[in-house]
């Protein structure tokens, strides 16, 4: 306890000392020495000394984080070729002039703070120091090896843009900007993580976003006080409303079109540098059953598919539980013919249905986990072993019944058919709870756990927005885009709870005018006036 307090105190003191920031020493050699020392003489910190006219200067950058072409062609070359100034100026005044005349890069920035300069160096910028002045020029030459834009691997769609986010925040922001050409798309950046100083951007459409939600997002992001933020999952867990829940209350996506659509609904996107997964808040439960493709395909098909997903989620949740309950407690529910088959199969099985189900489910989970972690080259081994173990050997050995194999396979497939990975994971976990309830109290237990789940879902909020909205609280205007999807013509409203600053999405009058006769009745077509010839 005592040491705990002590540590806190020193931490506070450390913070205070870093508050009075050191300025860059005006002597170049002293300056470079400090840099070398502070970076531990790391060989990837490149210090290139040069003379600009009669001034001594140095360019400092980190190898691998910069793009070497602009650093050579736009920074070093023009600086070296810089002609002497007409009259000798003190370095303090000369530096801005030189920078303006000779640095052929888009973004330059002056600083006097040592901390800022060194952070820029390790963050992938090149910094120009000059002897005799305590001003440094930070030039943006970020680059280096990065993954190129590829198809999103977690949210694949048949129709729709194929681009997925990459690990670079700048690229991700650009991908979104390419979809909305609107000056009201605003981006705020901040650095999160005491050690990692990860760039985190908050993106929204000014005028559509709910100010309360935005303020809440900002406040929670600022409160993060951790060593490092390595992935958006860190941010997600640190800013979510409820930690003790199996359900995700923030969406993550790899697709720019989903982010764009959500920005248009008034949500806030949180982009973390170094991960292709962008967070969207506030999230509601129904969103996890929607995929981008729903909006690109016809509404009736999209609605049917969404219904299917709800069914899939339910099966994945209570499939094995129903089997256990029906075979253990409610045999009378099963039609006689089926009951005889199931009973005959289960006759040789030495375990009660619950144990049987548990064995199979856990076996499957093991196979699944192994399949994820295994090197690709031996991946097919897992499927062969899995098929043999689950499918054949277990049944032939009489350890499980074939009906159980069917149930496990169905639940296994359903857990992959949900568009959102995170909600499929919730179902995967809760399934075992349902199985336990079914084993002890039959359908009554399943029903009770189900109701408890509904109560829990209703009690959740995401950034103040009830998780089950627009179903509970019921908002008639927004129900058109939940488990059903009405034609786009009818979806005229933004979600009321957080899109209220500008509730109307589209005006009337874009519908096809049905009073105009169409097809063969159209006289013009009949008379051939609009023929393509």
């Amino acid at each position, binding site marked *: 306890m005592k040491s705990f307090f002590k540590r806190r105190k020193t931490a506070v003191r450390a913070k205070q000392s870093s508050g009075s920031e050191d300025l860059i020493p005006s002597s170049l050699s002293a300056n470079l020495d400090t840099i070398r020392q502070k970076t531990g003489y790391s060989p990837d910190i490149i210090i290139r000394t040069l003379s600009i006219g009669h001034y001594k200067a140095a360019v400092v950058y980190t190898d691998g984080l910069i793009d070497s072409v602009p650093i050579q062609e736009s920074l070093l070359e023009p600086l070296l070729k810089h002609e002497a100034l007409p009259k000798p100026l003190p370095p303090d005044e000369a530096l801005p002039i030189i920078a303006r005349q000779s640095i052929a890069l888009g973004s330059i920035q002056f600083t006097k703070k040592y901390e800022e300069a060194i952070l820029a160096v390790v963050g992938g910028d090149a910094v120009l120091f000059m002897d005799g002045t305590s001003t440094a020029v930070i030039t943006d030459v970020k680059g280096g090896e990065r993954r190129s834009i590829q198809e999103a691997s977690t949210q694949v769609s048949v129709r729709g843009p194929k681009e997925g986010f990459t690990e670079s925040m700048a690229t991700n922001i650009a991908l979104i900007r390419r979809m909305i050409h609107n000056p009201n798309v605003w981006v705020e950046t901040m650095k999160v993580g005491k050690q990692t100083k990860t760039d985190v951007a908050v993106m929204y459409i000014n005028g559509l976003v709910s100010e309360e939600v935005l303020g809440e997002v900002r406040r929670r992001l600022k409160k993060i006080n951790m060593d490092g933020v390595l992935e958006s999952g860190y941010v997600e867990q640190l800013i979510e409303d409820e930690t003790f829940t199996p359900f995700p209350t923030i969406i993550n996506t790899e697709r720019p079109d989903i982010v764009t659509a959500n920005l248009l609904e008034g949500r806030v996107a949180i982009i973390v540098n170094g991960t292709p997964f962008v967070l969207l808040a506030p999230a509601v439960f129904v969103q996890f059953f929607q995929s981008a493709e729903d909006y690109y395909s016809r509404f009736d098909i999209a609605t049917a598919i969404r219904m299917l997903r709800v069914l899939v989620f339910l099966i994945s949740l209570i499939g094995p539980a129903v089997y256990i309950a029906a075979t253990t*407690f*409610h045999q*009378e*529910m099963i*039609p006689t013919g089926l009951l005889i088959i199931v009973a005959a199969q289960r006759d040789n099985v030495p375990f009660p249905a619950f144990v049987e189900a548990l064995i199979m489910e856990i076996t499957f989970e093991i196979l699944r986990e192994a399949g994820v972690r295994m090197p690709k080259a031996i991946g097919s081994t897992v499927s062969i072993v899995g098929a043999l173990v689950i499918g054949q050997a277990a049944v032939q050995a009489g350890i499980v019944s074939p009906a159980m194999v069917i149930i496990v396979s169905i639940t296994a497939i359903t857990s992959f058919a949900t568009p959102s990975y995170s909600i499929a994971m919730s179902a995967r976990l809760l399934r075992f709870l349902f199985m336990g309830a079914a084993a002890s*109290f*039959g*359908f*009554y*237990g399943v*029903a*009770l756990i*189900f*109701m*408890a789940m*509904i*109560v829990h*879902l*209703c*009690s959740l909020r995401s950034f103040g927005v*009830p998780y*089950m909205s627009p*179903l*509970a*609280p*019921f908002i008639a205007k927004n129900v058109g885009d939940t488990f059903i999807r009405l034609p786009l013509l009818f979806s005229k409203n933004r979600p009321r709870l957080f899109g209220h600053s500008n509730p109307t999405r589209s005006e009337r009058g874009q519908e096809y005018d049905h009073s105009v006769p169409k097809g063969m009745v159209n006289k013009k077509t009949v008379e051939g006036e609009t023929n393509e010839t």
Partner: protein
Amino acid sequence: MEKAKISAFQLFVMIALFEFGSAILIPLAIGAKQDAWLSIVMGMVGGFLLFFIYYRLYLYYPDMLPTGYVQKIIGRIPGKMLAFLYMIYFIYLASRDLRDFGAMLVTSTYPDSPLFVVNALLMLLVIYTLRFGIEVLARTGELLFFLFLLITVSALVLISSSGLIDFRQLQPVLENGFYAVFKTVYMETLYVPFGEAIVFTMIFPYLNERKKLKRVYISAMTLSGLSLAFAMIINVSVLGVDLTSRSQFPILSTIQMIELAEFLERLDVYFLLVLIIGIFFKLSLYFYVAASGIADLFQVKEPSQLIYPMGIIILLSSISIAGSYAEHIEEGLKLATIYVQLPVQVVIPAVLLIIAFFKNKKTKALPA
């Protein structure tokens, strides 16, 4: 009072689910034989009349819980005592409902399970729910309402398509004269389930759109009343008067009759969900109202602290309330109606309204 707001639709859903609650389980108004449905409809109309008593009282004190305005009407100490009696009444009704449900489950599906365990499990769910307060309960109600509709409509489709319905069972109408029907109304249906909605007087102050209260209440009552009457029509026309009156849980017997395409049969377990939803909701409302009322009376800052002890009280009294299910039903539909429900739901509110009327007349006459 909790700092919460519920919408008009949420109140609608709560009233509808509440009215269904246990009423759909028991052989309601079967004293009127094949005219039971008529008795239910008349009970519903009586329920409207009762509502106007409660509504006028609410209009006098729109921001207060009844536990508060009773004290204004008849004085602090007598008001507190009366309000406390009401809370005990709500606890009693909650225990009754829990017993109804537990008995139903034990008789129909879990003959080997002890009543206590069955009741305790539902109680756990209710306790878990009530910790979140009225808003979450209201939202849960909205979701469950859709599920409820889905299952009941599918039940209706299944029953009608399995060719069980014989409307001749409902004839002759008014065989025993009008009085026989009327008797079940004032002996039974007026109080159970319609008068029981007195519990909502404790919910009204949370409503955010006050103007809609009358419309919401009447429409929810009408929906549930007509549906209950309809359920009774289906019960009687499927089972016949004789079987319906002898069956402990006519709705389950009806559903057990379903046999479709030699595949869908014995669906009572499926409809168990409807019954669980109904009872869960009714029980939660009684319990919530009792807890918030007691918190209000005794100035308990955190009503959620009361949830655990009161849950145990309700659970234990649900077991000890009656020796057998027959005794339980006899007590509920014969004795409690006249000696408990009638004074509590009709007489006392009416008297309170009259006093409030004169009190407010005096005070209103001065400034206006």
